[in-house]
């Protein structure tokens, strides 16, 4: 049973409302999880658990939010910015994310802004199509 992008967005919104205690009108596709919706690290795990349940999919750790493992590798991070290799690795790890803007200034402090509600919708769609 294929779900439309809108249907997925609707369910993702519900997950965010439950996991983060935000209002549903705050959960737009553009909203960033950390900046706009106030998610903290433990919330990311909570979101993964809830998405698995809501969509009956299995989400391998680090697949949806791979940033943490990148940041701890000196080969990928230099001077607070992602290196060429790091950027390539990130692209590889996050095919569900549009990295065009981030590439201009790959400051690791901005990594958090890459995780938007839309990213999750894309990710879930890829997962559902692959199933």
């Amino acid at each position, binding site marked *: 049973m294929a779900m439309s992008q809108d249907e997925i967005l609707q369910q993702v919104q519900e997950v965010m409302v*439950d*996991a983060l205690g935000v209002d549903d009108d705050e959960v737009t596709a553009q909203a960033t999880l950390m900046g706009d919706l106030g998610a903290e*690290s*433990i*919330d990311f*795990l*909570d979101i993964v*658990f809830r998405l*698995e*349940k809501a969509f009956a999919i299995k989400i391998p*750790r680090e697949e949806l939010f791979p940033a*943490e493992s990148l*940041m*701890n590798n000196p080969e990928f991070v230099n001077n607070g910015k992602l290196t060429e290799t790091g950027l390539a690795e990130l692209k590889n790890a996050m095919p569900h994310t549009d990295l065009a803007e981030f590439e201009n200034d790959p400051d690791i402090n901005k990594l958090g802004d890459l995780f938007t509600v839309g990213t999750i919708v894309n990710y879930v769609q890829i997962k559902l199509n692959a199933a």
Partner: protein
Amino acid sequence: MRIAQDNTHTQYDKMRWIWIDKFVEFHSGERAVAVKNVTLAEEHLHDHFPGFPVMPETLCIEAMAQTSGILVGEAKNFQEKVVLAKIKKAVFFDYVKPGDTIKLDAKIESIAHEAATTSGKITCSDKLIAEIDLMFSHIDQNLAGKEFPEENFVFTDTFKSLMRGAAFDN
């Protein structure tokens, strides 16, 4: 196994307090039921509130956190340091008063390498008191690279003694 005698160990031991009385049911990795008897001998009830003693709701959450936390810890043979990470939901429907025996019924909703979520209900004589859903972190698996004392300061022997007498169904 290392025998830890350092100061950190002592410090963590002192932090430990037990807020439930015993387990009456324990189904490994799935569900556990504990009870707590509430008594007016608990001093905080004298002030909460004067003339109207009721168990503080935060302490109801603590009791559920202990019940659920032990359930989560036992699922991994007490090898993980399980700490409360998030109160996902806490809704209260009634007061708990001195003389009440509350039943804390906890269920594992999901458990993974680095964390677990639980749902729970508190009842008193079959009346629903609260619904409390929690999330626990296995801290050695999180907080990238931060180191914690090697010994398991969460599940000390005192804590595990609570499980004696529970009807085990492993």
